[in-house]
């Protein structure tokens, strides 16, 4: 691309007039400013705002503590520690997101293999203290499944957890009998 470095002397005047013309035109448009917070702008349902952790259709925590959201986060604002219950079901022992760093890019939601982490259209997260922007698991975990109503990771996974034995997941054969010698 050729960058223009020299301008004719009258360019200053035409530029000024053009700018004035644009401003003049805007006199006849509807203003975009609204009176927040009395008035609120409509947000699209897929707008990316405050992050939540959702539950599966059975009401259990969806997050399995796989750390994929934490590693994909470009600003590194997610931290968690995985643990498991006595039946082998993994869940996060603690989970925190530092919303003073989060850029709402939605990568975590894309990376999450269980649809646990989701961005919601809520953007009203002002706080007086910065430390209050660090959300912990109690702040993040909601009671519903969010945008994905049906998905339950453990119904697909091969691991056994309380209430689901080997071979009971979706599209699984019952566990093989290894003593069976039939061809």
């Amino acid at each position: 691309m050729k960058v223009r470095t020299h301008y004719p002397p009258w360019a200053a005047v035409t530029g000024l007039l053009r700018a004035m013309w644009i401003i003049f035109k805007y006199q006849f448009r509807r203003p975009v400013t609204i009176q927040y917070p009395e008035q609120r702008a409509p947000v699209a349902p897929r707008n990316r705002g405050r992050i939540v952790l959702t539950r599966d259709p059975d009401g259990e925590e969806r997050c399995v503590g796989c750390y994929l959201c934490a590693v994909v986060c470009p600003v590194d604002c997610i931290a968690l520690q995985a643990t498991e219950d006595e039946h082998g079901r993994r869940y996060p022992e603690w989970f925190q997101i530092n919303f003073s760093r989060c850029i709402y890019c939605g990568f975590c939601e894309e990376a999450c293999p269980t649809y646990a982490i989701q961005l919601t259209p809520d953007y009203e997260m002002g706080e007086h203290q910065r430390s209050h922007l660090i959300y912990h698991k109690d702040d993040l975990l909601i009671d519903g499944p969010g945008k994905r109503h049906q998905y339950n990771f453990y119904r697909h996974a091969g691991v056994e957890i309380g209430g689901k034995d080997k071979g009971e997941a979706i599209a699984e054969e019952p566990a093989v009998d290894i003593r069976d010698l039939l061809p």
Partner: protein
Amino acid sequence: MPTILIDGNPYEVAEGRNVLQAALDHKLDLPYFCWHPAMGSVGACRLCAVKHYRDENDEHGRLAMGCMTPATEGTRVAIDEPEAAQFRRSVIEWLMINHPHDCPVCDEGGECHLQDMTVMTGHAHRRYRGRKRTYRNQYLGPLIHHEMNRCIQCYRCVRFYVDHSGGHDLGVFASRDRVYFGRVEEGALESPFSGNLVEVCPTGVFTDKTYRRHYARKWDLQSAPSICGHCGLGCNTLVGARYGSVRRVANRYNSEVNGYWLCDRGRFGYEHVNADDRLLKPQTPRRDGDELSVSAGRVWDEAIAAIRVTAATGKLAAVGSPRASLESNFALLTLVGAERFCTGIAEPERRLVGRFAHAARAGAFHVPTLQEIEGCDVILVLGADLTHEAPLLDLALFRAHAAAGAAIHLVGLRAGRVGEFAASFESGDPGSIATRGRAVAAGLRADGGEDPVAAVLAAAHCPLVITGTQHRDAEVLEASLAIVEALRARNGTHPWFAMSVSEANTLGVELLDDRRGMSLASVIDAIEVGDISVLVVAENDLFERCEDHRRLADALQRLDALVVLDHMVTATSSLATHAFPAATIPESSGTLVNSEGRIQRFCQVLRPAEDVVPSWSATRDIIAAIGRAEDADWQHLEDVTAAIEASHPAFDGATKLAPALGFQLEHQPISRVGHRYSGRNATIRPDAPDEPDALTEVGGLGPDGALPVAPRTPGWNSNEAINRFRIEVDGPLRGDNPGLRIFATNGNGAHPAPSPLDPGRSPAAATPSALDTPRSTAAATPSGDDDTVLVCAAAEIFGSESMSRRGPALAELAPDTYLRLHPKRAERLGVVEGRAYRLRLIGETFETSLEAVVKVDDELPDNVAVIPAGYAETRWWQQPTWMRLESVEVEP
């Protein structure tokens, strides 16, 4: 060197390699599963398919397995060829048909070779819509978790477990697509090398059960090269930490020490670092028990006041430790002076170690590396139970036996696992082991003579004698040295000799004490006569080194001040007037000398809790606080190492073992974490170690040279990435730094020996104590009509080592305290197999009691009783002792 054509480009490859190795040598991406650099090719997985052309005119070629195709001159293959690529993609697709949807909850995820290979072959979409085959898992003990659904039938596990390391209880079962890798019945895996399954299995079938409890992904682990501190072999480890706790230990490849392997004690023994019974705050146990009633500053001021006064009167002494670094011991030595320094090794063991170290330094024999041992053809193990004393030596012996057909002859109290593949085993008490050794030496001198063991040793190309220190018997060592000497005289070559030592720095602290300071017994004598009024003890529990516990406790109580630096609460720290928390190996940097005389550096992995500092720096602060700052003008560990180098020529070169302070690789310091490390801005700061050295928590990725921090390269996230960091697969690492050997080395055994053994070299303690005289193990009482038995201790891989047994997983595997007796002896004593007794053991100079389960063993000599070494209940045992037994049954 043959030149082969891969995808039309010529590559030079080493002699005797196959196409897969050649491709990996040249950093080409050829996927594989079943080939392993140490275990070779079997051609089972069919993933390494390439197009193989007959000659330059062949246009069609045929599919061949890279790992089964020799890379000979002119071999022409193509990796990047549509049919071969499609074949490899299909192999993965077939494997994936049954693969569970587990990655998010799979501990292999992020370092999974199967994930890497799936991405590499380009299989991205599941087309199969049928049902998946499933398996039930087995309980495999507290160390290994089993998740059989994830298996891809590469057979690496059984090849390692059975063929490579000699295990029995893992196998492959069932037929057709039901093949199953596991045990006949559920139960803990018996092999002491079972932890290697975690790394050998390319999938998440076998995973580390201790890691599961506090799981973090590989990319989140803060890692640094470390050294295993749980026996004398000094295996190289890669310790991973996260949020201030150690999460796991993995193998760090060292071409001359441990290769790809670790034993289970080394891999799972880390849990003591996170244990609850750590000493974490300065405290005053003698006055306040375990209450923290005084501020850290007060404890420090009081301790310094006591030390300052006694330093002036000369009544100060210090006890170092064979489990502490050279630097920590050297700092203590600087504090009190060489004459008032005690190594902290009990005299019976110290005699052996001193004799061995000085003979080795003088070049009387060559101490082989583990790799060299694998090439020996006749190995005589005299008085050592290697499985339990130095586990990886057991593996080296098995390799020598399995790969090279070596004949292994054992003479000892217990055969351990080595007995399973040994050519002969003769059981005896320490006295008869020594006698047997002398007979072999005599046989060798008499040209083989009648003695069968002497005859095979005489005929061997590369004979090796190994002994151990567990019997603490100087006669056994002398007998071994006599055999070595006889071999030298006979063959005119430099004989090979190895000795296992019990702790990570036993040889180091022995060589550091070159001016022969005090023995432990003379320390106690001196306390009793009031010649020592303040004692500083670093990382040592004197109750593990002294048999007369009552006398020791009285002596320690008499001290005006007992200052203890340690990371665990021990019997000694509980009697301290002032106890200060010390850093463990992963929490500090330092230098250790292993049993083959190799100096190695371990680097700090994580920052310890507040108030916890390495012993050397605490000691430096003491020296400065008593007004002698110029004696310990050390800012960093390197300064201490440099001071050691300057004063002890034996350790020359120790400062070169790690990159110097301020070292940069491509303008960045070496990072302890990779660039994927997550959560940096979640307000939990990455726990940066505060001690400045060449490693930092920020900065570039680990180098591909001296200190591989956590091997991974693009496309290779699993530990198989190690091949990318080498000049050739299974060769040394690029910029390899396998440590520095301080014994005269002589690799091939074909050179004339420089000097015969000089039995007069063994230096005696400068201030001998009555207790220092070796106790005779020669039969004081002919067995039969007397109640006196020779009490010997047997090392236990899980349980005898003071740090590793504090972790819950290994504690679960440690056998209960036992007393093993010959059936006749048990009958005389009126005890029954399997029952627990309270025993009184009455020796000539001291007595003690013990609660133990009786085990009857008819392979045992009938004048011997065996107890486990180093247990809390048996730690008084220092040397074979004739004792009278009295027993009372304990109600269950």
